[in-house]
């Protein structure tokens, strides 16, 4: 009997205690995740990929399409995640608007088509071509960057737009070397140390894509927090002040272009090896635009946000809109039956962009810094600071 009140006391005390201990654990978890970020990315990507792979066979996924179709879609989404992560280096980190990003995607894809197809009778190893595609894209990134880096804002966007238009047209018209509109077909499927990827079952592609996305995510995060990441942020905020602090703005911007293009090169090789055909229509302006929309909606500057944005947007465009068509076809509503939602995707993207710019300009999962820029004098952010500053100060002392 004596113990009873004490227990009650404990219970009373426990309620807030639980919350605070939850907070403490969450804080510890966040701290650990920040400290070992690369491992956090590896583990969460591994868990996420495995979960998604098996869940695709169960509801609600299984109502829509087969597991293999889902997996194939996820691989395609992976291509867009890579593109978005790469473009995010140029647009999100360094603040250079690039509207011709699909060109670098094309270089990766065509390099793979030249290196591993019956067209050239070359069958080089997949991994060599994966790196080669990235390298070629990087070289062209520098080639585009070097003459245009004196341009800023709108002018840079116009030049990159032109570059993005020129590249597919060159591939289209150089028929002798690229087979023009027919494209280069029958491209080899990846062959990694003797294991040839099967065509129907997409599991191998899925595993490869998860690994590449994981590696790129880790590298991009490391870049963000490094000397060069700070230099990019400085250039984005105030180019003159950056130069006056010793940053060579030219080489730093070139590095952003080259590294962004590298990622597109990876994406190009992987996409070509999955589709087994490369033709110029895969690299039109719509690709550049879609990737840019993914970045803006996902959270410019934040690799995680960008990756999530790309994944969601790809699945909306490739799955949801098609399903809407099917649903309304079955419903037998006369007008809705006639609407092809897939054709409306850019209208929908446009509306989404307008809404996001109005209500959440920093995107779905914003980067801390971008949010600061967009909401300069928010009460919320100053509260955050009040919590953070004393801790940081203690470290300094």
């Amino acid at each position, binding site marked *: 009997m004596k113990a009873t009140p004490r227990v009650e006391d404990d219970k009373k005390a426990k309620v807030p205690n639980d919350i605070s201990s939850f907070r403490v654990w969450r804080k510890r978890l966040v701290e650990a995740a920040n400290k070992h970020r690369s491992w956090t990315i590896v583990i969460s990507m591994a868990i996420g990929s495995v979960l998604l792979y098996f869940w695709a066979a169960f509801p609600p996924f299984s109502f829509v399409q087969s597991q293999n179709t889902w997996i194939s879609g996820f691989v395609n989404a992976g291509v867009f995640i890579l593109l978005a992560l790469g473009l995010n280096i140029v647009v999100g980190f360094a603040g250079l608007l690039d509207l011709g990003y699909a060109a670098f995607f094309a270089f990766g894809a065509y390099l793979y088509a030249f290196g591993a197809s019956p067209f050239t009778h070359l069958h080089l190893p997949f991994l060599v071509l994966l790196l080669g595609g990235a390298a070629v894209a990087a070289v062209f990134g*520098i080639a585009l960057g*070097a003459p245009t880096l004196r341009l800023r804002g709108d002018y840079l966007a116009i030049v990159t737009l032109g570059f993005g238009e020129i590249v597919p047209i060159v591939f289209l018209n150089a028929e002798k070397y690229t087979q023009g509109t027919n494209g280069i077909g029958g491209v080899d499927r990846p062959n990694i140390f003797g294991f040839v990827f099967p065509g129907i079952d997409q599991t191998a592609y899925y595993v490869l894509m998860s690994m590449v996305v994981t590696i790129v995510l880790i590298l991009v995060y*490391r870049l963000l927090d490094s000397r060069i990441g700070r230099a990019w*942020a400085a250039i984005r905020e*105030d180019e003159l002040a*950056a130069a*006056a602090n*010793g*940053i060579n703005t030219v080489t730093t911007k070139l590095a952003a272009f080259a*590294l962004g293009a590298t990622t597109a090169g990876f994406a190009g090789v992987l996409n070509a090896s999955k589709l087994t055909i490369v033709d110029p229509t895969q690299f039109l302006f719509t690709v550049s635009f879609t990737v840019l929309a993914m970045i803006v909606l996902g959270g410019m500057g934040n690799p995680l946000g960008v990756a999530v944005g790309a994944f969601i947007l790809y699945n909306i465009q490739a799955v949801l809109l098609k399903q809407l068509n099917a649903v309304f076809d079955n419903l037998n509503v006369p007008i809705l039956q006639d609407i092809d939602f897939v054709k409306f995707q850019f209208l929908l993207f446009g509306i989404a962009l307008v809404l996001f710019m109005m209500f959440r300009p920093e995107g779905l999962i914003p980067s801390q810094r971008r949010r600061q820029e967009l909401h300069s004098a928010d009460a919320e952010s100053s509260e955050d600071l009040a919590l953070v500053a004393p801790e940081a100060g203690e470290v300094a002392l």
Partner: protein
Amino acid sequence: MTVAPAATGGEPMSDDLLLNASNVTKRFGGLVAVHDIDFTIPTGSIVSLIGPNGAGKTTFFNIIAGIYDPTAGVVEFGGRKMIARSKRAWLEPFIWFSPGFVGIIATIIASGAGASEGTIFIMAGITLVALMATMLVGVARPPGYQHALPRIGIFKSARPNDMVGVGLGRTFQNIRLFQNMTALENVLVGMHTRLKATWLDAMFSTPRDRREEKEAAEEARGYLRLVGLRGKDGELAKNLPYGDQRRLEIARALGSKPKLLLLDEPTAGMNPRETQDMIVLINRLRRELGLTVLLIEHDMKVVMEISDRVTVLDHGEKIAEGSPEAVRGNPKVIEAYLGAPAE
């Protein structure tokens, strides 16, 4: 006051000049912002540049910092010619395009001589790579390239980041911090030239990169403490009070370990106490870090208190130069500031 020994002529100034600007002129269209100015900064001194608004102080400052090319004149830094009007700059693109040009000619000759398609393809590839390499060098302008250019008679002024590389740090009249970065990150950006980690180091998180980042953060905190921002390293620059922002800008400039620090109105908009703190800080920087300081200032009290030498500009011309006392009594200076006396 012990803070200004030099004002009484107590501190011997060394004879070697850190900066030597001669006959510097800058025209913007028809406006002569700076006209034929000779200006020297002895190593270890605090030199001030004063004058009414629009006298060309900041223009002169920007020329020294590598932002504007002068219309005429030469600026030497540490005995090396860094800034002058470009000479034969039109020759430079020829250097960039010559390897590519040679390659194109060679490819055309080869195709005319009936070489196989593969050979021509490879030659065209080599041409492209050579062209890109020279373009890249020309655009990025590494130091070796800049030193090589004068030998063949081409001269191009150093850019702002090159000036930082040889030892010049500066602040801006209207504070230009990186507003959305923390104080610590601002100083780390200032240390950019002294950090060696490349993007490859960053990507693979090499031990060099990790050690460097750690040491750099430690050093940056040291600079923050030096300017009196102890414990504020986690604050966003834009959330700091005005006086602290000025101090942070100085800390950021110190990050590059400059030999010469250019301060553009460091006490503008400060109250008397903050101004006094700034005077103490500037003197301390000279004493502890051995810095040479060039100051643009409107506050005469500050100028007279800490300067070894004062130069007065008016309408882009130098009207007086000398010790603070001499300048204070100079009738031309009084006229420039107060207007000509009524006859």
